[in-house]
C-alpha cells in the first residue's frame, strides 16, 4: 500500500511537469494550429543556459529568472525571424521547419555544452518539514512552481487586456485585426510564453533526470500524450492530462510492464486517444465548413 501511494504521489509530481510541457504545446496550438515538435529541445537548451549561469556562480533564482527571460525573448525572436516566413504555408512545410528547429537546438546543446550527463541543482532544501515519506521536497517544490505558473497564466489570459487580445487573435484573427490587435505580434508573444513555460519545466525536471541534450525527448512525448488526452485546445485539459499520464506512467512502469517500455506507453496512449477519442477529454469537437 505504501509503495502504491508513493508511486501515485511521485506520478502526480511528474504529472505537473508533463502538464506544463503539454500546456506549452496547447498554447502554441491554440494560436497557430501547429504542434511544436521542437518544444522539448527548446526547453533543454534553456535549461543548459540556466546550468551555465549557475556554473558561473549566479544564485539559483537569479539564474532561473534570467533563463526565463532569455527563453521568452528567444521564443519571440524565433517566431519573428523564422516561423513568420511559413505562417501561411501548408502543414508539411511547418512540420519540417519544426523538425529543423529540433535538430538545430539539439545540435547546439551538444555543441556548446557537450554530451556528458550533468547534474542540475534543485532549489529546494533536501529535508523540509513538508517533505514526508511519500514525497520529496523537490517534488513538492516543482509541483508548487508549476501550479504557480498555471495560476499566473490563468490570471494573465482571463484578467489582463493583453491576455484578452491574445485570445482574440487566436480565435478570430481577421476580426481581431479589425479592432486594432496586432495579430502577428500576438503569435510571437504566444511563442515567447511557450518557450518560457518550457524553460521552467526543463529546470524543474533536470534535477530528477540529469541534464543532457536528449533530456526532453521522452518527456516531450509524455507532454504530447497529456495534451492529446486532455484535448489539444484545452489548457485545463492539458494539466489534467498531465496528471493522468504521470500517474499512469508510474503505475504501469512499477506493476505492469517495467521501465524499459515507458516510451511505448506514450505511443499507445497517443494512438489510442487519437483513434478512440480524437478530441480528448476536454477538447471541443471541431466542425469545419466545406
Amino acid at each position: 500500500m505504501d509503495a502504491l501511494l508513493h508511486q501515485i504521489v511521485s506520478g502526480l509530481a511528474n504529472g505537473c511537469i508533463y502538464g506544463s510541457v503539454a500546456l506549452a504545446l496547447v498554447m502554441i496550438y491554440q494560436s497557430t494550429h501547429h504542434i511544436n515538435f521542437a518544444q522539448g529541445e527548446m526547453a533543454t537548451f534553456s535549461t543548459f543556459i540556466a546550468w551555465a549561469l549557475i556554473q558561473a556562480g549566479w544564485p539559483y533564482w537569479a539564474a532561473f529568472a534570467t533563463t526565463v527571460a532569455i527563453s521568452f525573448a528567444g521564443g519571440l525572436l524565433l517566431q519573428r525571424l523564422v516561423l513568420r516566413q511559413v505562417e501561411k504555408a501548408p502543414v508539411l512545410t511547418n512540420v519540417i521547419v519544426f523538425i529543423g528547429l529540433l535538430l538545430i537546438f539539439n545540435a547546439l546543446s551538444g555543441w556548446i555544452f557537450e554530451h556528458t550527463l550533468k547534474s542540475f541543482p534543485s532549489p529546494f532544501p533536501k529535508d523540509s518539514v513538508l517533505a514526508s515519506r511519500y514525497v520529496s521536497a523537490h517534488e513538492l517544490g516543482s509541483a508548487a512552481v508549476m501550479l504557480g505558473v498555471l495560476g499566473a497564466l490563468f490570471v494573465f489570459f482571463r484578467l489582463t487586456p493583453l491576455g484578452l487580445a491574445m485570445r482574440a487573435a487566436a480565435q478570430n484573427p481577421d476580426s481581431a485585426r479589425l479592432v486594432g490587435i496586432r495579430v502577428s505580434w500576438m503569435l510571437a508573444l504566444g511563442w515567447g510564453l511557450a518557450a518560457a513555460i518550457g524553460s521552467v519545466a526543463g529546470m524543474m525536471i533536470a534535477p530528477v533526470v540529469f541534464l543532457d541534450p536528449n533530456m526532453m525527448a521522452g518527456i516531450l512525448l509524455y507532454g504530447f500524450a497529456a495534451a492529446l488526452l486532455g484535448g489539444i485546445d484545452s489548457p485545463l485539459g492539458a494539466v489534467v492530462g498531465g496528471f493522468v499520464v504521470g500517474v499512469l506512467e508510474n503505475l504501469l512502469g512499477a506493476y505492469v510492464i517495467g521501465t524499459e517500455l515507458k516510451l511505448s506507453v506514450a505511443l499507445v496512449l497517443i494512438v489510442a486517444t487519437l483513434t478512440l477519442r480524437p478530441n480528448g477529454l476536454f477538447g471541443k469537437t471541431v466542425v469545419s465548413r466545406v
Partner: protein
Amino acid sequence: MKALGPRGLWLTVALLVLALLVLPFLVKNYRVFQFNLVLVYAIAILGLNLLTGFNGQISLGHGAFYAFGAYTAAVLMDKAGVPYWATLPAAGLLCFGFGLLLGFPALRLAGPYLALATYALALAVPQLLKYKRLEELTGGVQGIVLVKPDAPFAFSLLGQPLSQDRWLYFFTLAVAALMFLLSWNLLRGRVGRALVAIRDHPIAATAMGINLPLFKSLAFGVSAAITGVAGALGAITVAFVSPDSFTVSLSIFLLVGLVVGGLASIPGAIFGAVFIQFVPNIADDISKSAPSAIYGVLLIALMILMPSGVMGVLNGAWARLRARGS
C-alpha cells in the same frame, strides 16, 4: 529531354547505365560500400516520398519500417538460414502488412497529428527492439551480426575483383532499379493521380469517386513495403543490425533526404540519398554535432527558399534552358 531527340536520349541512357556498371571497379571497396548505402537510402526515401510527398500523409516514423525490414532480414538469415536475396520479398510483405495496420488509425489523423503519432513510433522503436521478451529473436542490445554474401561467380575488371561489396552493389542497383520502375509505374497512372488528388483536396477527391480509406491505407502499406525492402538491403549491406542504429534520427534523416531531393519527385530520392550519405562525413570534420545543425538549418532554409528541393531547381533550370532554345 525532347531537345536531345530519341537517338540522343537512348545514347544518354546507355552511357549512364555503362557508367553505373563500371563505377564500382573504379573506386576502393569502402567507397563501393558507401554507394551501396546511397542506393539503400534512395529506396527508403522513395518509399517515404510515396506517402508524404505524393499522398500528403506526413510520416516522421519511417525509420520504424526500415528497422522492421532490417530485422526481418537479419532474423531470417541468422535464425532460419534463409538466403539473403529471399529475405527481401519477406521484408516487403511483412512491412506491407505492418504499414496497412498503421494506415488504419492514420486514416483518422490529419496533418500534424499523424506526424506526431509516427514521431512517437520512431522514438519507441529502439526500446521495442531491446525488449527482453523478444531478446531471443532480436539479440537484444547486442543486435545481430550477419555474414556478407559472396559473389556467385569470380570476375574482375580493371584489375579489381568482384568483391562482396561490389557484388552487393550490383544486387542493390538491380533492386533499386526495380523499385523505382515499380513506383514510377504506380504513380504515373490512375493510382498516382488519385494519391495526389487526395493530398491536394481530399473532399474533392471523394466527390470524384476516389475511395479515400482504401487509397490512403494502401499508400501507407506500399510505402512501408518499399522502405522495408530498403531496410532489409541495408541490413545485408552493413551486415549488422542493432536497436541503436534505428533511433529517431534515422527517420529524421530520411525526411531530410526527402526534402533535399524534392517532395513528390521520384528521381529526387537519389539526390536526397547522396546528400544524407555524404554530407555528414564532411560535416563531421567540423564537429560531432555539426551534421544535425547543418541539417536543421538546411531544412528550414530549403522550406523557405526552395520548397521543391534539388529536383525542383533542376526542372526549373531545364525549362528555362528549353524556353531560351526555342
